[in-house]
């Protein structure tokens, strides 16, 4: 087994004993959300500031069905993935018509549109109060209400999502998306219709966001209005950049840093986002590749230091 896989499996086993199981669960859910964003951000070079559109839409729709019709967990996840992909298809279709700043502003504006629908439509979404009372129905005798059971369930889905994303970025599609990021004009000239591939990246990213959205709703038993807000979209961009958008594992590390910081620091220091700001400034100024780059550079330095010591 590869080193990354081993570290990941070890973290999954150790994590719920280090932090509360709910936080451990949230870390892997947020990582799935980050994986979806990074297909756009890291691989295609598209900064989407509207990922919570797909996350929140999926959470509301699946949450509503769970609450009112008691559908089973897997069906809810399927619905979430579908809603995430479908909303990404609509939003993506509009956004890929433009590039650069206009693209970013479109993702943001459409996010706001979805946000205000959720805000106004109080009879369904609960508006500012959110949509509480989302159950985790038992399935085939598995009791998902047990925090550890749910943690294991989420971890397995996370590993599955990671495996899927790994296949996608190592497929021709992954390379074509990177080619579009590197040089869109040339990618068109050699025969790829860039908007269509960007849209495909959107839909896949949306499906991942949708999966994360439903898992999130079931974790906390509520769909907070915040889950479809631009702040949430910003959080996942933040986390991914801190982790490192140039690598498949960057968003996972980013999710760990972000959730762990926010959950552990917010308890005793209300101004904890300051820390996040500092972390972000350090990343932007010194480690453009995020924690992943910092780690590899540290490894190289250590290697040099060791070899110079051996010589001496």
């Amino acid at each position, binding site marked *: 087994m590869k080193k990354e896989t081993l570290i990941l499996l070890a973290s999954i086993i150790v994590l719920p004993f280090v932090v509360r199981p709910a936080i451990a669960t949230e870390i892997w859910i947020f990582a799935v959300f980050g994986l979806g964003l990074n297909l756009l951000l890291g691989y295609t070079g598209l900064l989407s500031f509207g990922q919570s559109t797909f996350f929140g839409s999926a959470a509301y729709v699946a949450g509503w069905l769970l609450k009112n019709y008691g559908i089973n967990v897997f069906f809810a996840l399927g619905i979430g993935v579908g809603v995430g992909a479908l909303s990404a298809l609509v939003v993506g279709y509009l956004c890929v018509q433009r590039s650069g700043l206009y693209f970013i502003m479109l993702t943001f504006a459409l996010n706001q549109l979805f946000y205000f629908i959720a805000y106004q439509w109080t009879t369904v979404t609960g508006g500012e109060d959110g949509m509480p009372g989302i159950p985790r129905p038992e399935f085939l005798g598995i009791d998902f209400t047990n925090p550890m059971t749910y943690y294991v369930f989420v971890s397995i889905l996370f590993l599955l999502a990671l495996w899927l994303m790994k*296949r*996608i970025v*190592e*497929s*021709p*599609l*992954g*390379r*074509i998306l*990177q*080619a579009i990021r*590197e*040089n869109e*004009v*040339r*990618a*068109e*000239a*050699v*025969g*790829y*219709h*860039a908007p269509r591939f960007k849209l495909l990246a959107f839909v896949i990213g949306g499906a991942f966001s949708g999966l994360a959205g439903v898992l999130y709703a079931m974790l906390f038993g509520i769909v907070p209005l915040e889950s479809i807000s631009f702040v949430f979209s910003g959080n996942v961009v933040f986390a991914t950049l801190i982790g490192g958008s140039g690598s498949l594992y960057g968003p996972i590390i980013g999710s760990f840093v972000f959730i762990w910081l926010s959950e552990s620091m917010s308890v005793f220091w209300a101004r904890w986002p300051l820390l996040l700001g500092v972390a972000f400034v350090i990343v932007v100024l010194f480690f453009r590749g995020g924690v992943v780059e910092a780690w590899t550079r540290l490894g190289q330095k250590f290697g040099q230091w060791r070899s110079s010591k051996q010589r001496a």
Partner: protein
Amino acid sequence: MAILETKSLSKSFGALTAVKDVSLSIAAGSLHSIIGPNGAGKTTLFNLLTGTFAPTSGKIFFDQKEITGTPANRVAHLGLARSFQRTNVFPAFSLFDNVWVAAFATGRSWNGLLYRKVDAYPQAAERARAALADVGLDKKSHQLAREISHGEQRQLELAIALAAAPRVLLLDEPAAGLSPEETRNMVSLVRTLKGRYTIVLIEHKIDIIMSVSDRISVMHFGSLIAEGSPEEIQRNADVRRAYLGGIAA
């Protein structure tokens, strides 16, 4: 027989007419050069032929079929590949990945686009290797495009066009910015490609053109002012005036 033809092709950008009433016929298997002073409209003509811009008026035929207004990404699939005047590669990719992307685009099948490994397409890989070998970069296939010299990037530029296995190759100043020695290498490279592809070559260094071309068209201020064999063009009074006028202006 003509493989690529234009009929009264024009392109205006506002008040500026960059290409004016150009009717051109490229014979299959030939090396046809388009020369003219800077700003004569050569690159704009290429942009029209490859669908980067739609013409303001006129028609384009490829293999007897009209392709006017076909967007760039579909023109590539018809068998029309181009290289760019300004190096236009994928900087963070290895040389192999640069050409692989082009080879895969026009490859026979996109099956497994989302889940098969990139190395599971032997045909595309084979074509990519052949394209690099054709331009003499096969030994550097694992280097990154941004790390090689300008001269090598010009070769890579050509290899990306070749990897699409085109029927017609449109080369936009392949020797742009090259040293005299690199230019000689590029000319001999183009000569080896002659006969394997129909080639349309833009150049404004006349000495290069005269030695390799079967036929030459001369553009000046967006219009075609002469067409003929290299000898005929050399003797043509209008051509001399256009070039001298271009320098004097």
